[in-house]
């Protein structure tokens, strides 16, 4: 009889486990589903081709082109800057630093810590930087804050793939008489290119979706930014402001904007998977 009880307990817990896994997956479906159902009816071409006209936030004509362009510019600019900082750092701790080096360990630890810093703190810090430079909320400010936010995300993802490169490959390259820089650029980067691209895309996606870091630093504007020193609208903030109005038409536009943002994020997420699978041309296995 004792064995029976053990089996019953196991089955109860197994049932609970399956139920909670299903619940989590179901939530994902529910979130995506409600974004699509709410967003589709109010989605139209004007949304993505026009900037807000007068009285847009009272339900008049216009679209959110300003926010789409602003978000792409900020996330794009930040991604470029973040690559310029992340890639050298990751190459340094994997190629230049000795195995088991203190500095490499410390850097990884610092990246983990930075990864946990909330985006609102990056926003506040970005704001301090802007103040000290004498700048106002602008496209540049948004780029700076988002760069800081995505550096740890990008670096950690890059480190994960570059770390996995077999040490023999590096040894083979050195044996041919290359310097460490040449090995880093021509062997390590090429070998881990799919992983690096994935890391870049993940960071870009995070940059597009984040609102808390740009709320102080990028400001908001109804026109497409024409210079680095002009305030720029972003998609998440556009959704936030539209949700905040009491007017139903404007709220519906918020749902449509959310659908556009979700679509962008899904597109990026799917591209990373395709890259991971297909772009393994130069990779030696």
């Amino acid at each position: 009889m004792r064995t029976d009880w053990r089996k019953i307990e196991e089955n109860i817990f197994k049932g609970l486990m399956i139920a909670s896994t299903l619940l989590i997956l179901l939530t994902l479906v529910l979130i995506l589903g409600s974004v699509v159902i709410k967003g589709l009816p109010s989605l139209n071409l004007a949304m993505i081709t026009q900037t807000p006209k007068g009285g847009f936030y009272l339900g008049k004509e216009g679209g959110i082109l300003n926010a789409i362009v602003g978000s792409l510019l900020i996330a794009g600019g930040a991604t470029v800057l973040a690559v310029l900082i992340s890639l050298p750092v990751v190459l340094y701790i994997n190629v230049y630093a000795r195995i088991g080096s203190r500095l490499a360990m410390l850097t990884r630890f610092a990246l983990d810590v930075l990864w946990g810093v909330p985006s609102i703190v990056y926003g506040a810090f970005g704001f301090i930087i802007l103040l000290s430079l004498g700048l106002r909320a602008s496209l540049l400010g948004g780029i700076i804050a988002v760069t800081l936010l995505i550096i740890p995300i990008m670096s950690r993802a890059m480190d994960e793939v570059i770390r996995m490169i077999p040490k023999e490959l590096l040894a083979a390259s050195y044996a041919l008489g290359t310097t460490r820089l040449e090995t880093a650029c021509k062997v390590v980067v090429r070998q881990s290119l799919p992983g690096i691209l994935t890391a870049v895309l993940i960071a870009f996606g995070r940059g597009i979706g984040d609102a808390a870091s740009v709320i102080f630093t990028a400001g908001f504007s109804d026109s497409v930014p024409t210079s680095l020193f002009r305030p720029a609208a972003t998609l998440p903030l556009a959704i936030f402001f539209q949700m905040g109005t009491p007017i139903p038409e404007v709220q519906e536009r918020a749902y449509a904007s959310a659908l556009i943002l979700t679509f962008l994020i899904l597109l990026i997420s799917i591209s990373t998977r395709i890259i991971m699978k297909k772009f393994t041309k130069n990779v030696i296995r």
Partner: protein
Amino acid sequence: MNKRLIKDKLASRLMFMLTVFMIALIFAIVIGLYMKSRPILVTKAPHELLFGTKWRPLKGEFGFLPFIMGTFWVTGVSIAIAVPLCLLSAIYLSEYAHKRVRAFSLPLIDLLAGIPSIIYGMWGVIVIVPLTRDVIAPFFRVFSSGYSVLTAGIVLAIMIVPVIIHVSIEVFRTVPVELREASLSLGATKWQTIKHVVIRKALPGIIAAVVLGLSRAFGETMAVLMIAGNVARIPSSLFDAAYPLPALIANNYGEMLSVPLYDSALLLASLILMAIVLVFTIASRLILIKIERRIQ
């Protein structure tokens, strides 16, 4: 010297500097926030700031307690909901599930992590707020506007699920197969093995995973800003509105430059947030590093 070697040396220097810059960034953030919150730190006593309950910036009263308590309430609820769910699914996915089920589920959970917090906030407003207002609160015979601790806790719980599951699965993977086999060969069932061997061995790692989730929930801003209700009073029940620290910071960015000490107070709020998150992340990362060392 050879041109190639000079290039190598130069690149090495540059990369070294960037690496040091990255590590220094943590200190730069803390020092920057501290410098900017000094004006309020020198004019007000620390206990007045931390334990004061009155928030009247126009009268120069800055008591952070309602916001700190709001943060704790919301985070506490989210952890209470997320931890059992995450542990059960992490155990299922790492111990029981077929390889194909795992390969199907993990990318979807990753997707959950990629959804921007503004979308979670909006979803909270259109789904969870009415759920709390019309179903859960009436069930307990209380009135709630729906914008409450519970609503924010539920949405935050979903947002931290991917972090906790991911780290937990990694931790379960570090438990040696030999240990499981030893337990199974003594006649234990699979569940008994998990309960008495795997979970016990993985406990520090699980705690670290939960703390990482906790610090995520702590700093989450936009979603909470939209659904927690934002009333500067210490919540006394699940159905009360809360005003967590990140929401306070994000909500007042427009006005803060016109009122004296206001900007300093908000940057102090960021500093408090940063300090709490730093302690949590550093503690959990140290535990995880120890576990990683053990298996190497």
